[in-house]
């Protein structure tokens, strides 16, 4: 059939998406990671090493501290190190409150820390451990081992942990031949494969599992503590983090997990020897709801506890280091100092001496030791900073660089003259200020923008949209066959591939930085030229059509659209976007109702307004339905998730005001409501399909549609109830089995749709001798009647029965789309939280009402088949708004810490393995369920007019039939009216969607046009998001509000455009099947 349109859609989708991709590459540019590594001259205390620490050596070092031989030193190792990383160990968890009578579940559970602090205050330290955002575990681990600032774009790669190739402390430890042992979260072994002497790593995959990783660690930890062949031991516990995700911090499970941690810490303290430093740390905190990822104080304040059995730590009096707060990047140089290994090349942190055990180094006084450490650190930072600045020119401000450099030169002179402790202290204070300045400079400018990529991205997103608007929006649906000829489209693809290859090969000649940029640039350029060529060639018809468009038509709708797009440009609007969208959506529905009312009032009561007539009219019923839709939208606003900036948001309520938690354990009502609504939804769609006659017969899709939704809704309901029930000993596999059934059903549906999509039943033509009984109740009367007629010998009837009877032909297109939608919705429901699944179904209800209101409106305003199959602009905008409203109605927000990761684990306990691809797909399906669902269903907008007419002819025909018994005059007038309407449309509407097949070319063209209209709307939206990011790229809130909004919108585009293509593909497949069916029937006859 006509697959040309499909390829044009793919082409347009590619153009828009590649523009967005290019922009995001320029906007969210990552730091250039450097692969150099540090080395050092290792001063040793054992006599048979190369650099033995002797008084002469010390003297030589201090003769010129800046000399190359002494700026690259490593002092001897101070102690062994045990690192206990407790994921999401918030600072507040470790602070002991003396006089609370009723501690919260997370308070006062780590009592061993308190004891140690009380007993040996000089050998224990409790500090705030400040993380840099993004506070996701992978980024934090990178920060904790490389000492560099994480970059924004890394955040998406939480599921795909790549090996770190930057210099880091683990590699340095390995190079210094200190054996490492690791236990716990497998993220470490993904980041650092083959580095550990022994690694007991367990996947961090299942966040519902609070205990198994921790139990495994506990099983191996005593044995490892007893053995002496390691110098560094790292254990990473996940239970607290998983508990936060599952239950939130205020839950008795949290108390249990923290008490467990307490036991582990005390056992480690008991087992460790005197030459070991124990570091207990959290990699990030958590919000009041137990999630993390953002940059609030709750999320960034983790805990660090250091303890040494024998050695005292240096004090802040000795060193001038901050004793309250430790930046997480400072851990790397500090660890290097303790272990005597070189500080990693790209580290930007400072050594914090408060947690370095004060082990005396022979022949060196205390301040000399500290000075050497601090100066090594300073040298390393300067080396990195200036090398980076040299290689990436124009990254940093030149004047700033100059002042920093001058200060450093001054310091290099000053360091020569330090002979006592007082001088050292003042020196180290100034040095620290200077180094922190460097850190801040980096932090500010790190995420730099690439103007070339950004502007190209903007341009190449805009141009295809613009030309598609000119060319496709202003042509008639019947002309597309002339515009896009199969051959030309295939040449277009070939030329694009050629341009891509050219870009890939010669990108350097055009001074593009990456191959990707070159490829996208040349293909987009070529495609734009081609689109412009198409436009010019058909300019005549375009201009003609354009001239016919009313100049200020659709003004309210345009205003609405403008408001939708304007949202991106103000941070306050982005924050309140959910409310704004519902406001606009309600406005669209009111607009539709107003149009309908105006129209039908003119038709229904020509001269006299009468209440009685009004009360019986279709208009009133439609108004009531729209009111229902509006109330649904209003109700959905209770399902919105709030964000931090809105104030009084429970998700982010700071833990200092306790008393409530978001994840209340038993919200029984919500779950039951969700289940009831799901059952209602499937029942109603089933009833609808049955009343259309689409559930008759035994074709595979009919069977699936008859039994599938029931099974799916039972499974979805069961999954919701069991997964959230308070009963503890349900096996995960049993819960997951239900989710798996739903996945399976959707796959089955896809297979069936691609194999035999039709949901019709052809009554087989019978000869008088055989009577086939299919066992379906609804068919038996038919057969009976036929037999009766046969015995009576009614020729007329017999002849009529030669016309084949096909059930469900009037809704042959929409029924399949709807039943596909049911399975899709079920999949999403099982992935969403119960509350959110209510939101999804509410949106589906609103969608159904928009469809029916629009269907009737469309019929009454249409003047030909083409205009009848082409939805009105306000309905298209309404559908578009609904798709995006659904995102918010399903409890999502455009912030990075509120991504619903739990969707990745639905049905994944054993069977589906641990592929990151599947996890990513599931999370995307959860997050963008609105756009995906409604874009897949978009074809209903043009088919539903027809099926409505076939199903409820009197709905459309005005209320004449209801008031017919009253006055014959009115009746006649109304009948004449419907005749006029039928004449106006110019074809027989009563055949329902079969009419679509008869005007196949126009219909497919209209479907294509509708899809491109959605492309344009979505493209315009993402374009506005990109433009807003460009305008606001130095705005205070850019990383907090605009960039996440852009990322969400970009992902919605990447997902939404393919969904539209899937929707169109569905349409094509059905059309082909209908074609086959009609041909078969004709042949049979």
């Amino acid at each position, binding site marked *: 059939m006509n697959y040309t349109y499909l390829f044009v859609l793919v082409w347009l989708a590619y153009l828009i998406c590649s523009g967005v991709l290019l922009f995001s590459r320029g906007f969210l540019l990552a730091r250039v990671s450097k692969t150099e590594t540090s080395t050092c001259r290792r001063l040793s205390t054992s006599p048979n090493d190369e650099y033995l620490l002797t008084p002469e050596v010390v003297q030589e070092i201090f003769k010129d501290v800046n000399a190359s031989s002494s700026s690259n030193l490593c002092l001897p190792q101070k102690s062994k190190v045990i690192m206990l990383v407790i994921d999401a160990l918030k600072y507040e968890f470790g602070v002991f409150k003396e006089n609370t009578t009723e501690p919260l579940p997370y308070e006062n559970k780590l009592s061993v820390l308190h004891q140690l602090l009380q007993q040996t205050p000089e050998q224990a330290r409790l500090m705030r451990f400040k993380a840099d955002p993004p506070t996701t575990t992978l980024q934090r681990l990178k920060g904790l081992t490389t000492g560099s600032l994480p970059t924004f774009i890394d955040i998406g790669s939480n599921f795909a942990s790549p090996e770190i190739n930057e210099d880091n402390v683990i590699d340095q430890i390995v190079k210094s031949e200190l054996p490492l042992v690791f236990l716990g979260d497998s993220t470490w072994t993904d980041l650092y494969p083959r580095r550990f002497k022994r690694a007991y790593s367990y996947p961090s995959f299942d966040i519902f599992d609070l205990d198994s990783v921790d139990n495994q660690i506990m099983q191996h930890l005593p044995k490892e503590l007893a053995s002496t062949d390691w110098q560094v031991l790292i254990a990473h516990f996940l239970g607290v983090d998983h508990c936060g995700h599952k239950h939130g911090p205020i839950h008795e499970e949290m108390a249990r997990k923290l008490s467990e941690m307490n036991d582990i810490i005390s056992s480690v303290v008991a087992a460790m020897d005197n030459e070991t430093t124990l570091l207990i740390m959290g990699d990030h905190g958590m919000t009041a709801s137990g999630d993390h990822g953002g940059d609030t104080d709750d999320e960034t304040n983790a805990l660090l506890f250091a303890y040494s059995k024998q050695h005292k730590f240096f004090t802040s009096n000795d060193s001038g280091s901050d004793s309250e707060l430790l930046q997480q990047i400072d851990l790397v140089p500090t660890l290097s100092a303790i272990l005597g290994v070189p500080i990693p090349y790209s580290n930007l942190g400072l050594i914090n001496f408060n947690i370095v055990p004060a082990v005396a180094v022979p022949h060196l006084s205390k301040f000399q030791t500290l000075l050497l450490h601090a100066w090594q650190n300073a040298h390393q930072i300067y080396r990195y900073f200036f090398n980076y600045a040299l290689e990436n020119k124009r990254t940093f401000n030149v004047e700033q660089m100059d002042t920093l450099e001058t200060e450093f030169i001054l310091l290099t002179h000053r360091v020569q003259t330090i002979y006592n402790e007082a001088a050292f202290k003042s020196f180290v204070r100034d040095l620290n200020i200077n180094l922190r300045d460097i850190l801040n400079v980096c932090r500010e400018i790190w995420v730099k923008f690439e103007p070339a990529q950004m502007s190209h991205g903007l341009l190449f997103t805009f141009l295809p949209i613009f030309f598609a608007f000119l060319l496709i929006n202003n042509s008639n649906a019947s002309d597309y066959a002339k515009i896009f000829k199969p051959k030309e489209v295939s040449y277009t693809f070939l030329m694009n591939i050629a341009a891509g290859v050219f870009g890939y090969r010669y990108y350097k000649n055009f001074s593009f930085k990456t191959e990707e940029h070159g490829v996208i640039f040349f293909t987009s350029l070529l495609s734009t030229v081609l689109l412009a060529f198409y436009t010019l060639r058909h300019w005549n018809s375009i201009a003609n059509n354009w001239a016919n468009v009313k100049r200020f038509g659709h003004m*309210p709708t345009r205003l609405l659209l403008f*408001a939708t797009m304007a949202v991106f440009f*103000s*941070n*306050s*609007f982005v*924050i*309140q976007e959910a*409310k*704004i969208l*519902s*406001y606009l959506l*309600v*406005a669209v529905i*009111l607009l539709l109702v107003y149009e309908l*009312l105006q129209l039908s*009032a*003119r038709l229904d*009561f*020509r*001269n*006299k*307004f009468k209440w009685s007539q*009004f009360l019986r009219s279709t208009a009133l019923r439609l108004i009531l339905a729209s009111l229902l839709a*509006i*109330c649904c*939208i*209003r109700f959905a*606003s209770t399902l919105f998730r709030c964000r931090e900036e809105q104030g009084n948001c429970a998700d982010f309520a700071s833990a200092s005001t306790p008393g409530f938690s978001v994840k209340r354990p038993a919200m029984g009502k919500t779950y039951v409501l969700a289940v009831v609504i799901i059952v209602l939804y499937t029942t109603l769609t089933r009833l609808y399909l049955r009343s259309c006659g689409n559930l008759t017969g035994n074709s595979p899709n009919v069977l699936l549609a008859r039994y599938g939704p029931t099974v799916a809704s039972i499974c979805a309901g069961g999954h919701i109830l069991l997964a959230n029930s308070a009963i503890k000993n349900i096996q995960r596999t049993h819960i997951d089995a239900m989710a798996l059934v739903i996945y399976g059903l959707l796959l089955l549906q896809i297979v069936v749709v691609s194999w035999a999509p039709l949901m019709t039943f052809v009554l087989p033509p019978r000869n008088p001798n055989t009577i086939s009984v299919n066992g379906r109740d609804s068919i038996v009367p038919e057969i009976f009647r036929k037999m009766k007629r046969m015995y009576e010998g009614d020729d007329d009837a017999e002849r009529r029965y030669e016309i084949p009877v096909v059930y469900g032909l009037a809704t042959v297109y929409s029924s399949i789309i709807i039943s596909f939608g049911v399975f899709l919705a079920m999949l999403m429901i099982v992935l969403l939280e119960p509350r959110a699944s209510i939101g999804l179904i509410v949106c589906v209800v609103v969608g159904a009402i928009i469809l029916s209101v629009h269907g009737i409106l469309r019929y009454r305003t249409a003047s030909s088949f083409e205009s009848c199959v082409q939805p009105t602009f306000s309905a298209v905008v309404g559908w578009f708004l609904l798709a995006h409203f659904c995102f918010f109605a399903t409890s999502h927000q455009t912030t990075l810490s509120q991504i619903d990761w739990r969707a990745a684990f639905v049905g994944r306990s054993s069977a589906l393995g641990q592929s990151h691809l599947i996890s990513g797909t599931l999370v995307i399906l959860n997050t963008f369920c609105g756009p995906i669902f409604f874009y897949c269903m978009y074809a209903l907008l043009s088919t539903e007019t027809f099926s409505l007419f076939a199903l409820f002819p009197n709905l459309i025909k005005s209320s004449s039939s209801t008031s017919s018994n009253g006055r014959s005059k009115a009746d006649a007038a109304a009948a004449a009216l419907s005749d006029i309407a039928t004449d106006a449309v110019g074809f027989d509407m009563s055949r329902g969607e079969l009419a679509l097949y008869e005007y196949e070319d126009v219909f497919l063209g209209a479907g294509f046009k509708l899809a491109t209209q959605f492309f344009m709307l979505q493209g315009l939206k993402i374009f506005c998001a990109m433009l807003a990011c460009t305008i606001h790229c130095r705005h205070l809130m850019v990383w907090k509000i605009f960039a996440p909004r852009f990322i969400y919108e970009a992902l919605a585009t990447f997902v939404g455009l393919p969904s539209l293509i899937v929707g169109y593909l569905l349409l094509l497949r059905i059309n082909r099947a209908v074609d086959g069916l009609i041909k078969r029937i004709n042949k049979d006859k």
Partner: protein
Amino acid sequence: MVSRFDQQKTKHQLFHVSLSLATILICMTYMQYRRNWAHLGSFWDSLIVPIVFIGELLKVILARFFGRIEDGVLTVKQRQKKASYFTPRELFGGLTLQFLCTLLYAFICIILGAPVLANYEQTFVLSLLMTLLTVSPTVFLLGGGGALQVCFCEKPDFITKCEDTALHLFKYNALGGILGAWAGSVVAPLDWGRDWQAYPIPNVIGALLGSALGNIYACTHVLYACGRVYMSKKRA
């Protein structure tokens, strides 16, 4: 039909528009005089609703005044309609219709995001104002039944020319008011922290400004049409 400045219709239109603009100007002056925005949301404390009410009433009286000239040429139906204007039935119908409209506007306010269980008074004032700007003038002019017919049916035959002129201008007023009130919400989410961002104030001001804009638009139309005729005549 060419329009000229010295026509009755044009005079009526211009008087009508200037009345509306004067009403809104008085409202603005009053607000300026009070210097406090919070009173806009209260029913008893604010004079906005009475001012608008009087303005609309004056417009209806204006239409009646211009209508008197046509009295001689009325059809039977129009006479009947006119005679029944002050009957209790019509009065009651008109009041009920306005009351229902206020309720409808209040409902729309709530579904568009006004608090459900709070700010009754503010919602009431806003919906009252919207009713006054949209439905009331028509009801005052034609009575309850007449207003319904005008809204839902094709142009009824009992409407005099003068009433038709007024109705045409009421339409601009109403459309401007609705769009203005709707668009007034645009400042609500902004984080400027001004006191006039509180709930009904932007919508009330938006409604007033919107209807002013609608009137200005209508005025420009009239002036433009007249001016063109005038210029062409002068040239001739």
